[in-house]
């Protein structure tokens, strides 16, 4: 097994765009290095350079001090470098076992894949995450049928299945719930003990401080700082990432007034049930920011989709005291609802089309026939400016934007319709801290303008910091409604785990490090 890997002065261009101009990274065995940076700072490119997916344009990779060149993922793999990709590298049509062992299938004497061995070894790997799956996860289950968190876990298992000396976890925790993250961190500590090196890429500060030994910060393609975690605090780290500290002004703690309860009821839900949800009832007032929390996949997405008319439900939904039953999202849109979907790549954006087209997609009707393009451009420019959208021009494809900016386009396209009710499905997933802060300010502003926002997030911290109230969904029912004094991280986690009577110490296994 190798002992160390260093990247020196790495340069990488994509066409005219410089992704990395001076990337540096040192990783040693028995170490967890956090690779940190805002979206678009070059983190993903850095991990792709190390694992051979992209060929570098300059700089050097040193393995145990010797210059190395990885021209393909195969070459990096041979060197014992495994990657857990953010965009999943699983084949949906194939089974869990087939995916994990792809290219390394144990063969029998005839060259056939040895099914029994595959089955046994897969079971062994799955047992590492035993107890964190919602359903009994079988090795022969097709990957397409799994929820996102389980797909991510399969991705992790696939990476460790060939016993690499170095593991790159690229946003691997983004779609995991807290139990699964705990389990992953236990494993990371084990791997460290076994002499492996781990590169941990994440946006979640709290996780970085819990698991990493060292950090390396990228900003605009340059490594701007590196050192030991114990010598730095959260504020200093964020400062390194975004230069100007002022952006990191969380709205946390502000405007949690009860006065909003006094305004008229905007949305009222009574006994809403779907395949996943049972008898959901709540009210949201005008100008209120209502959080929806809980572990992933407990029905939060279903709730937003049924309110938007995208899935079938039973029960009563009232909008400003009028009962509504949307058959199609366009009915919901007509009455001023907007949904920012959770998977921006799949449901939110047309990546190869221009920013202008993406922003205008829900609103073209307002621009007549033939389209008043001049006015559309003007409005889009305005929307872009108000969202602080960093782009080369409205005509550029969305694929040219970083994750945070792409998410701004998703939100922007709905804001252009001036909605009354915003349904947000985990909008800050995979978004950098700077953009998050801007985003929080935007939500607060929208509420002040009298919009009602239902905000599902997998980030407990932002629910607690931002929302007036949080409905915690567990196993399809509202397990708790937290507000004011009861709205704390402990309370939220406890309710997420199905412990309804306040905060239970057992619910925080291994949380204190």
């Amino acid at each position, binding site marked *: 097994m190798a002992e160390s890997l260093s990247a020196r002065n790495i340069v990488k261009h994509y066409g005219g765009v410089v992704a990395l101009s001076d990337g540096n990274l040192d990783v040693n065995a028995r170490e967890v290095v956090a690779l940190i940076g805002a979206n678009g700072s070059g983190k993903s490119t850095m991990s792709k350079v190390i694992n051979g997916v992209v060929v570098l344009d300059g700089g050097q990779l040193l393995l145990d001090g010797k210059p190395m060149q990885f021209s393909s993922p195969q070459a990096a793999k041979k060197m014992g470098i495994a990657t857990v990709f953010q965009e999943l590298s699983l084949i949906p*049509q194939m089974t869990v076992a*087939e995916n994990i062992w*792809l290219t390394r299938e144990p063969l029998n004497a005839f060259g056939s894949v040895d099914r029994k061995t595959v089955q046994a070894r897969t079971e062994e790997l799955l047992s590492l995450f035993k107890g964190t799956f919602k359903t009994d996860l079988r090795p022969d289950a097709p990957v397409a049928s799994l929820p996102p968190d389980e797909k991510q876990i399969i991705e992790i298992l696939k990476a460790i299945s060939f016993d690499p000396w170095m593991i790159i976890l690229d946003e691997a925790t983004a779609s995991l719930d807290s139990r699964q993250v705990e389990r992953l961190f236990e494993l990371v500590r084990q791997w460290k003990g076994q002499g492996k090196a781990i590169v941990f890429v994440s946006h979640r500060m709290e996780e970085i401080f819990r698991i990493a030994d060292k950090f390396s910060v990228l900003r605009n393609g340059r490594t701007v700082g590196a050192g030991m975690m114990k010598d730095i605090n959260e504020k200093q780290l964020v400062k390194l990432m975004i230069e100007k500290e002022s952006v990191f002004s969380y709205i946390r703690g502000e405007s949690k007034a009860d006065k909003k309860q006094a305004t008229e009821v905007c949305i009222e839900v009574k006994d809403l049930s779907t395949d996943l949800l049972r008898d959901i009832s709540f009210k949201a007032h005008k100008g209120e920011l209502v959080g929806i929390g809980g572990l992933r996949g407990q029905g939060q997405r279903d709730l937003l989709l049924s309110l938007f008319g995208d899935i079938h439900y039973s029960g009563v939904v009232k909008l400003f005291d009028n009962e509504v039953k949307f058959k199609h999202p366009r009915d919901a849109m007509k009455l001023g609802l907007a949904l920012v979907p959770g998977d921006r790549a799949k449901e939110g954006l047309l990546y190869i089309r221009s920013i202008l087209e993406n922003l205008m997609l829900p609103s073209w009707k307002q621009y007549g026939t033939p389209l008043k393009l001049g006015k559309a451009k003007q409005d889009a420019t305005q929307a872009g400016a108000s969202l602080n959208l960093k782009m080369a021009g409205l005509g550029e494809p969305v694929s040219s934007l970083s994750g945070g900016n792409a998410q701004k386009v998703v939100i922007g396209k709905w804001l252009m319709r001036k909605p009354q009710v915003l349904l947000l499905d985990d909008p800050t997933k995979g978004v950098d801290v700077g953009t998050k802060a801007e985003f929080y300010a935007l939500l607060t502003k929208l509420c002040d303008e009298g919009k009602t926002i239902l905000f599902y997030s997998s980030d407990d911290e932002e629910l607690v910091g931002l929302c007036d109230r949080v409905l915690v969904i567990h196993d399809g029912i509202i397990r708790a409604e937290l507000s004011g004094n009861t709205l704390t991280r402990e309370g939220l986690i406890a309710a997420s785990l199905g412990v309804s009577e306040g905060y239970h110490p057992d619910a925080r296994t291994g949380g204190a490090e």
Partner: protein
Amino acid sequence: MRRSRWDALMSRYPSLFALILFVISIVINLILQPNMFAKDTLNSNMRVFLPIILLSVGQAIVILGGGIDISVGGIVSIVNTVLATRVGLDGSPERMWQFIFVSLFAGLLAGAINGFFIAYLRLQPIITTYATSFLYAGFALYILPNPGGGIPASIAALYRDTTPLGLPLAFYIIAIILLIWLYVSSTRFGKYLFAVGGKPDAAYETAVPVTLIQFSTYVVSGFMAALSGIAITMLSGSGNADIGASMTLNSITGVVIGGNSMSGGIGGVAGPVMGAITLNIIQNIISFAHIDTWWETLVKATIIVVALAAPGVINLIRRRRS
């Protein structure tokens, strides 16, 4: 992510639909032609079916890998014209064997040309093979401008009348193909094929040799097309540069009826084999029912549309019901 029973069943057994159609068509055929399973009838049917079956198997491999090959008919024509002109009606068996060898090589080469353009130059499969289909058909026409030539009747009879243990030769060939597939699908190549057809980017990141796999599917298809050409030449005993033209659509129909996903990554070879047989039986039914032959294309096209639309229609009905 909710999945209904039907979805689960269909994803586990993609050829279920093929099996149902297969059984229905056999039953109808049996009603119209009670002696369908008599030794001679069976043999005379199966030897006509075999060329399309072989072609569908090759097509299935390409489609599983995420591509499509519409040049197979042209390859069949090349093989047919080569055999008919070089062996001749009074050729020796040795010469026949020699040119069978040449034909197989020609098939591999034609497939390799397709594969090179598609896998290595990254051209669109449908456009590329559409273009090469004219190249191959044109080459066949150059070899044999007017129908004619042929192979010795004695050699044709070898294909037409060989019935070991009273069963048609085609059964043995199908059995061998299925056994080979059973083996291949259990090897790494098989897993790679599904991976490349399912999600090529992910397969690449996992270090699957994507380009090589894509290339090889066209080579396999070319080889199967050559086998198909040899079979149809031995069946007809004569040469005609136009012989393969109508077979391309049939091979694709066989794969579609066989339940393979047109976008790749789902299915197998048994389904397309059944699909090809079903397609031929339907043609028989049409002729037995004294329906004008010009209906045939219409019926075939309808079957493709129905087979392609079936999953969507089932989904629609389910959505309406809920």
